[in-house]
């Protein structure tokens, strides 16, 4: 992506020599806007990385020196292992389950014509329209009511967390898979039927393989949406098990030292590596 911007900047440079004034200023404006956009995205990240090597115990500027020792103390971050583990576990389970629901649902929505299709579409996308805080609070009240009546402990369990995250990941899976399916040439599936493949076989051997890019993109979005969710999750955790973003939030309530910055850098690096790994199999620039 950065390389592409470099090419564009180069392009505008050579245009400056032969282009007329209006064209030149238009290109300069586009270039400037892109720089602003890149800065907006990268400066907070770079600042966090910068802070994570401050030597002082409290973040002050300018720092008295630099050290990598905070990275050695990651294990001292309260609940680092438990929070990261819970987040990864919940995100992975929510992703898998939302794929199991979302992929068949999107195939039905795009390829079949049935009564209530419009309703199902709206239903599957509706959690996107409700603020996370509202969903979280609503679920919490519901869980407490059910707990009181059934005397069965629900709040704070991983299962409940996974089900709740399913609410916010499934709309993304449906949206991305529907978009993917709509742009697939329907006659390819007809060709399979024409060659003797019954409907189930067409689905398995042609439709699903062709959806691969959409499914990977959907999984990616679902995982990230679940992994970084705070506002809904806040209502559903118990003191014992918290998710990673919440552990960072709780830490920041009492302290602001370079350790939290290094924790965030490590988390960003993990996600970035995950994206790079997936990019080797499916070109992300094509699916997102």
């Amino acid at each position, binding site marked *: 992506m950065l390389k592409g911007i470099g090419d564009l900047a180069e392009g505008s440079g050579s245009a400056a020599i032969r282009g007329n004034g209006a064209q030149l200023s238009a290109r300069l404006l586009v270039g400037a806007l892109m720089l602003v956009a890149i800065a907006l995205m990268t400066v907070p990240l770079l600042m966090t990385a910068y802070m994570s090597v401050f030597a002082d115990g409290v973040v002050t500027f300018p720092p008295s020196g630099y050290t990598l020792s905070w990275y050695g103390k990651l294990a001292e971050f309260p609940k680092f292992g438990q929070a990261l583990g819970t987040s990864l576990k919940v995100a992975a389970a929510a992703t898998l389950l939302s794929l199991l629901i979302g992929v068949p649902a999107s195939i039905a929505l795009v390829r079949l014509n049935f009564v209530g299709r419009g309703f199902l579409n709206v239903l599957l996308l509706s959690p996107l329209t409700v603020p996370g805080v509202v969903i979280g609070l609503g679920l919490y009240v519901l869980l407490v009511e059910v707990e009181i009546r059934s005397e069965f402990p629900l709040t704070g369990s991983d299962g409940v967390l996974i089900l709740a995250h399913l609410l916010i990941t499934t709309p993304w899976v449906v949206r991305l898979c529907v978009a993917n399916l709509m742009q697939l040439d329907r006659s390819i599936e007809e060709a399979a039927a024409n060659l*003797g493949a*019954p409907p189930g076989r067409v689905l398995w051997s042609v439709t699903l393989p062709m959806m*691969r890019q959409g499914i990977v993109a959907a999984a990616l979005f679902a995982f990230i949406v679940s992994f970084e969710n705070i506002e809904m999750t806040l209502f559903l955790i118990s003191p014992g098990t918290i998710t990673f973003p919440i552990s960072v939030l709780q830490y920041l309530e009492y302290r602001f030292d370079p350790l939290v910055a290094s924790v965030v850098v490590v988390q960003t690096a993990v996600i970035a590596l995950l994206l790079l790994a997936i990019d080797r199999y499916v070109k992300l620039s094509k699916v997102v």
Partner: protein
Amino acid sequence: MMSQDAYLRIEGLTKAYGATNAVQDVNLSVNQGEMIVLLGPSGCGKTTTLRLVAGFVEATRGRILVEGADYAALPPYRREMGMVFQSYALFPHLTVAQNITFGLRMRKLPKAEIARRLDEVLEMVKLVPMAERYPRQLSGGQQQRVALARALAVRPKVLLLDEPLSNLDANLRQSVAREIRQLQKAAGLTALMVTHDQDEAMTMADRLVLMSEGKVQQIGSQEELYEQPLNPFVARFIGHSNLVAGELVDADTFRLPGGAVLKLAGRYTQRGPHTLALRPERVRLHQPTDDAPPRATARVEDATYVGGHVDYLLGFAGGGSLALHEPTGAAGAARRATGETVAITWDGLSERLFGSDEAAVAAQAA
């Protein structure tokens, strides 16, 4: 027309969408090994007819018989037809070889037989070196040949071709058309092809089916459609015709609304409003002083030299016009200037008269 031993027979095939019929009462019998081309303007129902035969569209009424067995109720995957799609519809995630063998694997043929047929069709379409490539690595012409090979490999009962040449470069089209025709003949396959391109239809077909507004207008050889169009639509669509409205006032006198009078070549018993169809290339120009009595005189409105012929637009006194093509380089051909008065003639075989019900009117035997 309806021979009982036809290989493929379509009877009363109709597809209704709401109140409109996309395809209405199509009847057609096709002999084994014959290539039938469905031709017509877009929206005429030709593609729907093909999709009805393939089974992608469910017929509202009618029968589709192959060797006497009715296929109309069968799902597409049981019909054993081989279709070449306009977009080629290759499986993007499979190699050329896997694309071609897809239908064979669905039929659960033994591995050795699959390999043998793969080699055979790859050889046929000259794609042996491309077997392990993916469709996106091939040119449009090569993709088209993979699509054809995939359909041929299953040895279909009927080969269906949906605008197979429309996505190819103009200079590739002719050679691919010839190739498809050769392969179809060599394999002795019965084929239905859809196209909107008249030249394509003329070169590929054994017989043509011209459709318009969901209905068959005429079925026949190229020559039949060209020389004996059954209605004004056919006359205009195949090779273009002048369609001149007027009135039969006498056995051989045709009067235009503006008053000009044409002397017809044939003699007719009918009277009243009719439409005269004349091919621009079958009408000849003469000096008004020539000995042969002209059928009409007219004024040159416009003359355009287009290489092989001169494209004249003639106007009759009082209104009405006629296009005329005169071959260049012919003996006695001279360029007429705009405004000149000329005489025109044609012979009885080139004249076609349609009644107000659009049906062709026959001339009396001489």
